[in-house]
């Protein structure tokens, strides 16, 4: 598509400059897209492994927990769960990957997990809680990875749009307009030349008559 620009020498120069900048930008964005893609593929493998592992472990922890809660009274379970003195706090810092802010979590844990007596509760409850407790750091890791994945994915989408817009719209239309201006200018030059020749001829004819 031709840009709506008057065909003058000035505009031609400007367009040429724009063209080089657009090409440079396109190359840069393309490189960025490739790098994002590489990173996302790396992440995908990690997330898949970690998710499957967490899924399995949660399943086994839950089954212990269900066993435990069926062996003891619901009240005892509630009491046992509420008796924990454990507190978890998460600090976060951000890491920059290709100008994206990716969160990194650091957990600080205080207190003990098991704060209940062993009289009223089943042994399975201890096992379940220990398993789940170990899972927390894994879950935090997963949170980091998934957030990174989401951020990278949106960035890839954006970058791809930009790359495509430059590659298929802006750069071709600049090229086309440059070509159009060049043609128009040579056409004008030819027009000028023939007009001049014609005028000269007329002037010469007038002289001959007089």
């Amino acid at each position, binding site marked *: 598509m031709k840009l709506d620009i008057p065909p003058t020498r000035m505009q031609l120069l400007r367009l040429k400059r724009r063209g080089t900048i657009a090409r440079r930008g396109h190359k840069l964005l393309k490189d960025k897209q490739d790098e994002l893609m590489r990173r996302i593929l790396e992440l995908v493998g990690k997330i898949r492994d970690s998710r499957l592992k967490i899924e399995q472990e949660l399943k086994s922890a839950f089954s212990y927990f269900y066993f435990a809660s069926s062996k003891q009274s619901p009240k005892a379970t509630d009491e046992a769960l509420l008796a924990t003195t454990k507190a978890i*706090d998460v600090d976060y810092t951000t890491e920059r990957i290709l100008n994206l802010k990716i969160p990194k979590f650091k957990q600080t844990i205080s207190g003990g997990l098991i704060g209940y007596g062993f009289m009223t509760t089943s042994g399975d409850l201890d096992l379940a809680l220990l398993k789940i407790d170990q899972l927390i750091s894994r*879950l935090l890791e997963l949170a980091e990875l998934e957030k990174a994945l989401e951020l990278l*994915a949106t960035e890839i989408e954006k970058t791809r749009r930009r790359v495509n817009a430059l590659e298929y719209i802006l750069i071709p239309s600049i090229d086309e307009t440059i070509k159009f201006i060049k043609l128009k200018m040579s056409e004008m030059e030819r027009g000028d030349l023939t007009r001049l020749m014609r005028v000269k001829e007329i002037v010469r004819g007038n002289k001959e008559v007089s």
Partner: protein
Amino acid sequence: MSGKAMAIIGQRETIMPFLATGAHVVYIKEGESVDIVEALVAQGFKIIFFTEEFIDELDGILMKYRNQTIPCLIPIPTGRGKTKLAIERIRGVIKKAVGVDVFLEEK
């Protein structure tokens, strides 16, 4: 000290054991998830885990916070049945971004 860091929401029976880990646990029923998550985000929770069955309800919110570093909204498997909704979601995200289904071999 505990508190404004990590929250876990879901149905009571599923997430009860997380109470002992010191995370903030909120029991919800179907249809409540959106309001609860918004409230938690407003309170400043950085990471919110929710159980997989609420993934459809929370779709709008997930889209809303997609581009922000914080909060992290992460689905966790419930361990019950085969609801692979979370993995399906990730697959969708990747497919949209990359254009190819790179999660394919996992099936």
